[in-house]
């Protein structure tokens, strides 16, 4: 709007230059070359990339490993999503009350959000230790023999889920809180006059009115679930343990341990497509349960 005349193009360029250079070098060129690389076979050290068309994609989709990775990811999502929705709505509701000491509570939930995933995962690897960890000790007090958690192929993912709930509840709780604060209190007053109970108010007022927030949290959680990495790397040390194979971890292994760059980039594009399709599907389905009229 300003500076229509007499502006020096060089000054504009000076302001834009670092960002544009970065856009080119670290975004546009990489996206293009990654598309090309995914159609080649290349180990970096040897000759130039060998063009092999869609073979990488076919080989990935034909591999038993890909379906196992997808299965592990879905297992994570099935456990994580309902738990994070419940815990973040609960925490959001608690934070919405104006009781004394709520600031401490808020900080308590926020510390894991600030902590690096590596530190959080270290803590949880120890907390979930089958013999010497606190979780199994607590379970022992009520007479339950705790599972082998991260060393057991059925219980490894639930262990990762527990740690993730601990890490993420504060963050999503704050987002839910913002949604809850947007509800007009007169709705509740009207419902009380109509004789609605606590559950009635939750199901008929609160949840429908924060459905856009729930939708947002669902979309973000699912995107994040496809991108699990530090918690897997730190909590499951044995890279051959099949229950701990997930997308980003596999991509990392193929690219930087086996130097199969073509295969790894193809894997990353499949991951992108999956995320894209799942997100698209959720936006299509949202009409059925998300209401934006308040």
């Amino acid at each position, binding site marked *: 709007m300003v500076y229509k005349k007499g502006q020096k193009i060089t000054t504009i360029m000076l302001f834009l230059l670092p960002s544009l250079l970065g856009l080119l070098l*670290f975004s546009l060129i990489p996206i293009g070359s990654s598309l090309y690389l995914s159609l080649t076979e290349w180990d970096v050290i040897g000759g130039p990339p060998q063009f092999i068309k869609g073979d990488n994609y076919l080989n990935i989709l034909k591999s038993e490993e890909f379906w196992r990775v997808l299965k592990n990811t879905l297992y994570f999502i099935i456990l994580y999503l309902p738990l994070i929705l419940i815990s973040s709505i609960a925490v959001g509701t608690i934070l919405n009350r104006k009781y004394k000491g709520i600031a401490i509570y808020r900080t308590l939930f926020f510390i894991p959000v600030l902590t690096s995933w590596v530190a959080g995962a270290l803590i949880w690897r120890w907390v979930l230790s089958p013999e010497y960890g606190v979780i199994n000790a*607590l379970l022992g007090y009520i007479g339950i023999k705790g599972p082998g958690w991260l060393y057991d192929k059925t219980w490894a993912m639930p262990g990762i889920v527990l740690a993730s709930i601990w890490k993420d509840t504060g963050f999503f709780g704050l987002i839910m809180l913002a949604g809850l604060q947007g509800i007009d209190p007169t709705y509740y007053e009207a419902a009380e006059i109509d004789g609605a109970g606590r559950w009635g108010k939750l199901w008929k007022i609160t949840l429908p009115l924060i459905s856009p927030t729930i939708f947002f949290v669902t979309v973000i959680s699912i995107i994040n679930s496809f991108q699990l990495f530090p918690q897997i790397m730190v909590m499951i040390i044995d890279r051959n343990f099949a229950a701990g194979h997930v997308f980003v971890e596999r991509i990392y292994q193929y690219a930087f341990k086996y130097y199969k760059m073509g295969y790894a980039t193809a894997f990353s594009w499949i*991951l992108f497509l999956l995320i894209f399709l799942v997100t698209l599907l959720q936006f299509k389905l949202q009409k059925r349960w998300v209401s934006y009229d308040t």
Partner: protein
Amino acid sequence: MIHKEKRKKGSRSKTIFYLLTTITSCFMLVPFFWMVVTSLKERGALMVIPIQWWPEKISFKAYQELFSIDFPFARSIANSLFVAGMVTFITVMSAAMAAYVFAKINFRGREILFSLYLATMMIPSQVTMIPNYLVLKYLGLLNSFTGLMLPSIFNAFATFMLRQNMKSIPDAYLEAAELDGASHITIFFRIILALSKPALATLAVITFMGAWNDYLWPLIILTERRKMTLPVGLSLLNGQYSSRYNLLMAGALISMIPILIVYAFAHRYFEQGLSIGGIKR
């Protein structure tokens, strides 16, 4: 009668509230408690049954050892502070400069260029990280802090966030400054940056946190142990001393301190930033 009923209901709701609060607080606290307790134990007290909820003898050995073992732990803290600080500066400056152009200076193709910025936000970093690694390899910047930090000059999300903010600065301010003969550079520093301080602080705080906690990118770029950042160092420690939990817990605890200090001084910016930046974590 009605009044009595309501009070009863109120106290029951309060009980449920406190019960829920206590249970969830325990779930949050126990891991931290276990971390602190473990870091104060001696090696022999780690693997005992039944587990010790409190160390028989409080010992700071793990902390001493952390800095004396054959592992550059102190160095990794210094590296992380340097890298996180620089990445924050580079990201905020580069994004602010670009945002100024996108918000306030007209030129042909501006909107198309800006939509290109937004489009790149859709591509997850896992897709670009392999070619980024290769670009830095060709530039001879692998295993260097320059290589680690260089990609921060482009951050579509940061640019977008600051542009939205700068758009709200009235053009009249800029026009007045221009009449006084101020150059773009003066206007940028004296007016634009000065008026976007809250947004800059919010962005700086979440960028610092992201950089301080970043794991995958430094893991790929840095190969030399002396150059490791803290999260990578911790994960190496995890592989090397996988059963020395007192050492690992002491390391985890130390890694949390700087970010908690920043949080103590700027918690409002943190919460704001995280709720805006939810998508780009």
